């Protein structure tokens, strides 16, 4: 009997060890980025299309949208996440990082210390970003002002605070597959802007019990993670705006009946208004083609 228990215990250890090993936080292969050099000017476009500042600027910050001290709190059913400082400050920000560190964070949700990031950081979207865009974004972010503000810890309770559990979670929900089909160059651009950069689905798509996006109900609206109200669906079944209406909304914040965007969406508009008109039109085309 004792032998059997010992055997079971050993098998259990091996299984647990294997799971931990196979779901460990992995960086990107360094050689993938060595040949790439970033373009600051294009990186700025990636920065606004990716909406980095919406979360990483301070609470209520209205001055310079490129100052990224972090500190905004995101209340969810899993706990409260606090956006970290991602300014180029060498002590409090990410100034000491390499391009590979940055790519590992953005594409794989892996920190330079080899830990899993919580997916409040939308790497499940950014994982579809092209390597060149990652390099360009990194080049731009290194030009931003430093902020000497310490990042605050997340307030996440057991069991969600066990970061190792994010390994299996990533196996389930982190992949580079596109959700929607795209048949024209404009549709592809729109899809890239929405599914790889804009992370629209992180709020507009409902989640399952594990916090993964329900791709079958893509962009059909979802409860607000803060618990108050709903984030509207944007598929044609929920939204009958014309493509021009959608593009104009993304540019100015004005709805077709000339209300104006508020809440988190006002941040999105600030970013989207800085994109070229063709990009906003491509997003509108993507939204109209949703089903």
């Amino acid at each position, binding site marked *: 009997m004792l032998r059997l228990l010992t055997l079971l215990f050993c098998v259990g250890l091996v299984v647990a060890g294997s799971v931990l090993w196979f779901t460990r936080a992995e960086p990107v292969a360094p050689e993938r980025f060595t040949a790439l050099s970033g373009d600051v000017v294009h990186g700025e476009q990636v920065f606004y299309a990716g909406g980095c500042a919406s979360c990483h600027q301070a609470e*209520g910050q*209205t001055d310079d949208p490129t100052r990224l001290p972090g500190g905004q709190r995101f209340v969810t059913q899993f706990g409260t996440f606090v956006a970290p400082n991602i300014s180029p400050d060498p002590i409090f920000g990410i100034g000491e990082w390499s391009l590979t560190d940055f790519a590992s964070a953005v594409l794989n949700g892996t920190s330079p210390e080899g830990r899993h990031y919580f997916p409040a950081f939308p790497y499940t979207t950014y994982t579809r970003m092209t390597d060149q865009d990652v390099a360009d974004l990194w080049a731009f972010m290194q030009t931003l002002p430093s902020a000497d503000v310490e990042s605050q810890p997340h307030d996440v309770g057991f069991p969600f605070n066990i970061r190792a559990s994010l390994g299996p979670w990533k196996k389930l929900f982190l992949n580079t597959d596109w959700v929607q089909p795209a048949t024209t160059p404009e549709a592809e651009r729109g899809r890239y802007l929405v599914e790889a950069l804009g992370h629209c689905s992180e709020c507009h798509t409902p989640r399952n019990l594990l916090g993964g996006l329900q791709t079958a109900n893509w962009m059909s609206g979802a409860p*607000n993670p803060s618990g*108050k*109200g*709903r984030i*509207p669906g944007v598929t044609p079944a929920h939204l009958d705006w014309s493509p*021009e*209406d959608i593009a*104009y909304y993304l*540019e*100015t*914040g*004005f709805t077709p*009946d*000339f*209300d*104006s*965007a*508020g*809440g988190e969406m*006002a*941040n999105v*508009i*600030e970013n989207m*208004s800085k994109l070229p008109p063709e990009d906003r039109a491509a997003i509108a085309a993507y939204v109209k083609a949703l089903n």
Partner: protein
Amino acid sequence: MTKFILASVSLAALVLGTTVWAGGHGGNPAVKARQAHMQLYSFNLGALGAMAKGDVEYDAEAAMAAASNIAALAAFNQAAYWLPGTSNAELGKETRALPKIWEAGSTAGQINEELATASAQLAAVAGDGKAEMAAGLGGVGKACGDCHKAYRAPAN
């Protein structure tokens, strides 16, 4: 017959009067006044936006009229209808105005000044051409968004 007409007219007057009374007395008057104010922004912005989007042909005179209305609205003294005690914390679903508007450190007044400046600029350029008007409209939109971002509760 005269009696019948008199009775009908009286009844109609009574019904109409009751409706007006209900409309006039239901809800907080300060909230209704500011929502009406917002409605006037919306109506005038709509005239400009339709031209900016290309739904309607650009008309310098109409653009100037709408833009100066917006500038006039932004310059309005609204103190009497942004009363303390009229946020969604006190009045519930009747308003989406957040209590933060009246709390220490509120920037709502400052954003309204930004709106006044932006709408005065819009009024100055609205007659100069579609592109100038559309650009001026962008500045107004930013002020709208700044205030709604921080001080208005989500719609549902």
